């Protein structure tokens, strides 16, 4: 386990997991914050096939650009045909005006380019998220250059999931990753999986819809 993680928190980090079929993830170092020389700060979660998707977003009136871009994408697609989630940490791309909106759109478009998905007239198919400091523009070229690297690094192992969970962290002291299996009454012989990662340590009183 990572020695930078406080001893009291090590118990919350899984050492293995059971992850859902057809999903691939990665965590890649971009250096969104200039001081970050090696820690992964770009997470990519992709499905091998188009998915159903849904999201809830902050009700804060000053919604960050990726919130607006992602909500519009899901609405346009009627929650269908989604391929990936691309997330950067280190910069929230919030209160960044029209330029910030363009940056968030470019992140989604670059992620979309990784998939050979026929155009269906509904536009992009990637959810975009950002977290970090408010009021600064993303170093968008650095991020765009690394999205193909993030795609090449996709995998389904526990280490891939844990690295992705680490890549979304800001002031978090440990990556937050869980997985679980379950069955459904109509198909008792099939074992389904759920996997999830989350981040957050401060500015936390969510009110999402």
């Amino acid at each position, binding site marked *: 386990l990572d020695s930078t993680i406080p001893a009291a928190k090590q118990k919350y980090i899984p050492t293995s997991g059971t992850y859902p079929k057809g999903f691939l993830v990665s965590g890649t170092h971009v250096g969104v914050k200039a001081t970050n020389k090696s820690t992964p700060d770009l997470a990519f979660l992709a499905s091998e096939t188009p998915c*159903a*998707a849904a999201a*809830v977003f902050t009700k804060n009136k000053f919604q*960050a650009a990726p919130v607006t871009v992602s909500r519009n994408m899901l609405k346009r697609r*009627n929650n269908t045909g989604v391929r990936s989630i691309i997330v950067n940490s280190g910069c929230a791309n919030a209160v960044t005006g029209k330029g910030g909106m363009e940056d968030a759109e470019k992140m989604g478009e670059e992620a979309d380019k990784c998939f050979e998905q026929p155009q269906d007239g509904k536009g992009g198919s990637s959810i975009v998220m950002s977290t970090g400091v408010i009021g600064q523009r993303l170093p968008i070229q650095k991020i765009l250059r690394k999205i193909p690297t993030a795609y090449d690094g996709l995998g389904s192992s526990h280490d891939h999931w844990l690295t992705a969970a680490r890549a979304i962290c800001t002031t978090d002291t440990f990556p937050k990753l869980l997985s679980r299996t379950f069955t459904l009454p109509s198909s008792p012989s099939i074992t389904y999986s759920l996997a999830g990662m989350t*981040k*957050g340590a401060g500015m936390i009183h969510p009110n999402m819809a």
Partner: protein
Amino acid sequence: TLLGMIATDAPIAPTLLPSLLTTAVNKSFNSISIDGDTSTNDTVAVLANGAAGGKEITSESSEDHAVFQETLTSFAIDLAKLVVRDGEGATKFVTIRVTEAPSEVGARKIASTIARSPLVKTALYGKDANWGRILCATGYSQISEPGQPINEVPEIVPEKTSVSFIPADGSAELKLLVNGEPESVDEVRAAEILEHEDLEILVRLGGGKEEAVYWTCDYSHEYITINGDYRT
């Protein structure tokens, strides 16, 4: 900021996924508070690709839907709790349960208000069984409703309100206030309970059958240090 991503290989109809997620998030991520600030970026997304096969869930009234809802909600609660465990500078993980309420909405407002009270949170950091601050937060929790004087709040009847600490080790609850009357608190026992990282604060309103749960943490010096240093 809170971000969350959930992926499943179960087959869920796209039309059902938004309500499944909303229900799960209301009981989980929308029921936590670290510092009372709502971010500009909070987002939780769920993806379902159906790769494991089986029959697609297409009806809200199906048994599969109910099972998946329960699974997703409990999974989201576990994820949300991890966020609270990593609250900036936190030394305590606190469950706030408001029960015997006439409405769930009222119970949620009270739980949320206690969860964001700086004085409750600093008392928890100081290992102080300060039920007065808990009661104070309970009492003003509805004032924010425009045009509602405090004496018209139906959820809170001081003479019926009770506050207890529920120890994390499964031992007996410590009653601090019963039906509006303060108990003679065993300070040694209170100190023992507050030594644990985990604690539950139970507020019984004595006026109904609804309940709500919030998860929060304490405020420590470290919170100020971290956020005095974090630059925009």
